[in-house]
């Protein structure tokens, strides 16, 4: 094997087709979008070069800044929730359920395979009010409370969106972190136990440091995925009420395709890409520094 991979020709043969596809499908559209962000217009009206005007507009556009705020808020809350709940579930699988965890793992993972729109419809009907009231309000009524129209308020919609996304994704993060925990050698845990570490102390001083790399990957994974949230907020309440839960991706979609402003839409896409890159690089940098220390 080392001889095969030591051969430059083999490396090229194996790498070039994949790299070419990657460049064609990923890099070219990104650069295309970057190019478009210096123009104004659309395919019909034609494009006019406007320099950095679109970027200047972005930072004075109240709707865009609001959407940016929604995106970051959602990403921060979701990342914290997904990774924490996922980690707790992984600990449960490894230390409590042990070999019997397969069934629970499958059940918790199951929502991940459901289409987001179907899940949104499900959650919408769970919190529905009026003639087809959902079980959540039935329970509130049971305890003497008045029905709440969750999706008519910003906080209500955000809460449902967070719970819904958590429900669908926690199984995935649990499995991801579970595999990381399995990599921790049994001997290390055993010797820590012999040294008297158990419960929280074991987790705090042994498990957590040893699973740090996979935790870091999960955080990067989760943050990048949630920064690009689109379908769940669109299907749940169309970014509403108003545009109060509309993330940057939805604002980008509307700008480019509903208002036919391809240039400005591309600018928003570029800013979102930069945001993902900056975050990923920052996390990488800080983690490599810590490793060096």
């Amino acid at each position, binding site marked *: 094997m080392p001889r095969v991979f030591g051969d430059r020709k083999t490396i090229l043969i194996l790498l070039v087709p994949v790299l070419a596809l990657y*460049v064609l499908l990923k*890099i*070219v559209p990104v*650069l*295309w979008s*970057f*190019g*478009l962000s*210096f*123009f104004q217009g*659309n*395919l*019909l*009206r*034609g*494009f006019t*070069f406007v320099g950095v005007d679109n970027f200047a507009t972005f930072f004075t556009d109240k709707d865009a800044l609001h959407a940016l705020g929604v995106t970051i808020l959602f990403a921060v809350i979701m990342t914290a929730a997904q990774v924490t709940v996922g980690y707790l579930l992984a600990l449960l699988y490894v230390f409590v359920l042990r070999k019997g965890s397969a069934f629970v793992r499958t059940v918790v993972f199951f929502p991940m395979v459901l289409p987001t729109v179907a899940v949104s419809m499900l959650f*919408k009907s769970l919190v*529905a*009010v*009026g*003639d*087809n*009231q959902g079980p959540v309000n039935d329970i509130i009524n049971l305890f003497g409370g008045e*029905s709440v*129209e969750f*999706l*008519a*308020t*910003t906080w209500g919609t955000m809460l449902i969106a967070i719970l819904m996304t958590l429900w669908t994704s926690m199984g995935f993060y649990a499995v991801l972190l579970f595999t990381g925990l399995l990599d921790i050698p049994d001997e290390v845990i055993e010797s820590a136990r012999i040294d008297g570490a158990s419960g929280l102390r074991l987790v705090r001083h042994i498990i957590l440091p040893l699973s740090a790399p996979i935790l870091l990957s999960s955080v990067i994974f989760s943050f990048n995925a949630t920064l690009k949230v689109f379908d769940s907020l669109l299907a749940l*309440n*169309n*970014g*509403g*009420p*108003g*545009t*109060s839960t509309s993330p940057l991706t939805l604002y980008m979609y*509307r700008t480019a*395709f*509903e*208002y*036919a402003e391809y240039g400005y839409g591309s600018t928003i896409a570029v800013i979102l890409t930069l945001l993902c890159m900056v975050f990923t690089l920052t996390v990488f940098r800080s983690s490599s520094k810590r490793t060096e220390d």
Partner: protein
Amino acid sequence: MTNHSTSRRWALTGFAALTVAALAGCAGGNGGSTDGSTGGGDEPEKFTVLTANENQALEDQLQMLADGPCAEENAAMPIEHQKTAQADTTQKVTLLASQNALPQHFIAGTDMVRPTGDLGAGGLVADYQDVLGDAFSNILPAAASTVENVYGQMVSLPYQYNLEGIWYNKTIFDEVGIEEPQTYDELLAAADALEAAGYQPLTTAGADGWPMTRIMGMYIFRNVGPDAMTKIKDGSAKLTDPEYVAGAAALQDLASAGYFGTGFQTMDGGTSTAQFLTGKAAMKYDGSWLLSNINDPEQNEIGEENIGFMPFPAVDGGAGNINQWAANAGAAMAANAKTMGPKTEAWFGCIAENYGKQALETAGIVSGFQVNGEVADVAPATKMVQEQVADIDETVLWFEALFDAKSGSLASTNGSLLVSGDMSPEDYMAALQSSIDAAQ
């Protein structure tokens, strides 16, 4: 070291080349698409028609024409249907137009076909007065004037001619002892009486946004006058003026008084219609397209003879009056100017001559075309709307009709914040006005 810097140089060159290619691609998007030089006369073999998924009736009606009265035109140029989701119209039509691949007859966004819109400015949509020639007389004058008011030119066929007003349940009105309200104050009094009698006074599909902004818009038309929204477009008035803010406040008050019932903000169109047609709600502001639901006995449990239709009431001291009905002529259905030719013109001529009668006879649709010939057995509710159409002297558009695409969307989406009280009427109008200003 040398190796390292060489590969880095290669990488940089590659990156620069890609950027240039991308930028060149962007600049290339300008070419061809708006060039009108290819001109008419280049007729395709098929009469391609792009309609919305949501409007199956139009496809069915056009197919019936192709199989019936327009068989000759169809033999010369067979009809071919294409579909799109209504929400994707702008995107789809923009792409098709940029590739010179527009169908012969297609749905388009309101803003696109105006003289200043992407299609209008590029000369891509034909004027039906030129296309139809003598057959233009088959379009009712009121419908033609509505089309011209909305689009600024005769670039759409009035497959529907919709009046908008308040549908009400006559049985409930009789039981509670109320008459058709003539003024807005009487409407509020009627709502109070209905609520006291245990009925939900009004139903609205809050999730759709527009049914709520229509109420606000009509209040403004009655308060400011029929030119209320034209004044906003030409800049002689602002939505932040108190008489416009009063419209937003009126809508907010209706919602906070509880007249729309529980859960209206997340209610869809179908549920709201069901509330009215099953007798749960006494009134519903909607267009005459509701006739297809009213004429369906499976949906209509209150009986078609028990349904009344009244215009939005007058506002005391306002410059508008109750007889100025809100009217529209459906979504824009434009004709491709570039591929216009004798066979396509013959198709449009046949549609203009026969659509009115066929749509009324087979589906109870009130269109903006002349009904050439006798139609027997018209449903009572349809007849009522037809008679009303014949009586109308002056019409008004809807609230967002003259807005750009972004402001129109904002009016609708922010409506839910307004009715929930999360946004004050002043803030609602200020946000909308600033979006309109930005577009100008």
